[in-house]
């Protein structure tokens, strides 16, 4: 069983009358009790990301009476977040996520100290930000940060309560404990950039992060209390459509570059480079990409530009700018429908899939294919504001 906290730390903790009333339903469970509740009060948990997973995490961990909760996020609330990010409300749109997060958590439980880190987690700041906390919870939305969180946890010897989602499916595990595997033991190599759609690109059922995030909150509380059987050495796979939980046994990889017997990674590295994310080519004056403003000028000037939309048909139905629809997955088989001599502007929703499409097209000789930076979303924001954004 994992015991996270120094006993002396817990001994000095007292619960007020208000707290005893508030946590009454915890106090009467023998596995938690007064001692357990004091452990929670003595504990610090860091939540990385105040989004879909971060929302239930922040709320349930605050409600449970964790003494100190840190949250890292640099984003502002967007209307399209509200379908799943229940930490933020309609009136928070446009505000920093950490502001609404802190307000909401403090309203729920004023006994909790909420630390906010309005920054992008990186190799320079991660160890310092993680240091004061007992458990780190990974609610990020990208691979470089997931590897960063994992490695920082291994280096500091702190458990990484992991969760991740895609459309209707979720994964959860507890990585980087002394006895168990880490995220790199499971996925030593990141996928090539752009291959795995993000929530913004691939969509996600709004309830899903609620389920996966509460599983992470549950594991966090268990780790702090030292009760039950933590999700160590097991990857939980959840399918919301089938309503099925499956479990996969994981083993610690003795050759793991960060938690193995002879680790080659002994300090944090450049995770953007590790995941193959190169700083995007300069947008203006660059051949590969075209800004929405430049595209508009070309259309206004009557230049010959062929517009290719590589989204899915159901997205096309929501909003389109009249481009020819060939979903990215069908492009290799339908490329003959395109004329390589013409200027082609390729767009998708926000620019990720169309980037892959342009890379592919250029490889096979479409030299005049360019990616519309920011996709139809940027077009609707900057050029034609009558269009719906999703």
């Amino acid at each position, binding site marked *: 069983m994992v015991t996270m906290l120094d006993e002396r730390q817990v001994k000095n903790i007292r619960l007020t009358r208000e707290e005893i009333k508030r946590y009454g339903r915890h106090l009467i469970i023998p596995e938690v009790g007064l001692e357990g509740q004091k452990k929670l009060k003595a504990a610090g948990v860091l939540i990385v*990301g105040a*989004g*879909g*997973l*971060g929302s239930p995490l922040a709320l349930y961990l605050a409600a449970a009476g964790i003494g100190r909760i840190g949250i890292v996020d640099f984003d502002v609330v967007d209307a399209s977040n509200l379908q799943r990010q229940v930490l933020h409300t309609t009136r928070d749109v446009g505000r920093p996520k950490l502001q609404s997060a802190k307000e909401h958590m403090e309203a729920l439980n004023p006994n909790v100290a909420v630390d906010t880190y309005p920054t992008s987690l990186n190799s320079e700041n991660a160890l310092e930000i993680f240091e004061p906390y007992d458990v780190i919870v*990974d*609610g*990020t*939305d*990208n*691979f470089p940060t*997931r590897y960063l969180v994992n490695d920082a946890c291994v280096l500091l010897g702190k458990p990484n309560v992991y*969760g*991740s*989602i*895609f*459309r209707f*499916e*979720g*994964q959860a595990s507890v990585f980087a404990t002394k006895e168990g595997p880490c995220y790199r033991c*499971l*996925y030593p*190599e*990141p*996928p*090539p950039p752009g*291959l*795995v*759609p*993000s*929530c913004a690109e*691939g969509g*996600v059922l709004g309830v899903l*992060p609620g389920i996966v995030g509460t599983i992470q909150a549950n594991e966090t509380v268990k780790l702090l209390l030292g009760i039950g059987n933590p999700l160590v050495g097991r*990857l939980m*796979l959840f399918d919301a459509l089938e309503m099925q939980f*499956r*479990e*996969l*046994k*994981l*083993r610690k990889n003795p050759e793991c570059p960060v938690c193995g017997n002879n680790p080659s990674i002994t300090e944090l590295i450049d995770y953007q480079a590790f995941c193959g994310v190169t700083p995007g080519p300069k947008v203006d004056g660059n051949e590969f990409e075209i800004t929405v403003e430049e595209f508009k000028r070309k259309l206004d000037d009557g230049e010959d530009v062929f517009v290719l939309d590589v989204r899915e048909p159901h997205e096309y139905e929501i909003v389109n700018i009249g481009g020819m629809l060939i979903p990215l*997955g069908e492009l*290799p088989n339908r490329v003959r429908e395109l004329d390589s001599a013409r200027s082609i502007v390729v767009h998708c929703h926000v620019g990720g899939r169309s980037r892959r499409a342009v890379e592919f097209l250029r490889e096979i000789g479409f030299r005049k294919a360019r990616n519309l930076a920011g996709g139809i979303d940027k077009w609707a924001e900057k050029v034609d504001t009558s269009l719906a954004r999703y």
Partner: protein
Amino acid sequence: MKVTLRLFSIAKEMAGFEEREVEVASGAQAGAVLDILTGLNPRFTDWRGSLRLAVNQEYVPEGHLLRPGDEVAIIPPVSGG
């Protein structure tokens, strides 16, 4: 021999099915199912290094020997949060 192939998340979408019985050579390694998937959709080639294989709910390397009736699951990484 026959094994059951079970796909998760993006792998399911790329292959167009969730579960299917497939034929592999007797004594085949778990990685053989990745060849089957690449045959179905060449985009699996790009993925090969980052797809995880599990046989009968246990994470295995590509070289793991398959037995008739095994369930081979393909678990791609997902990053959403």
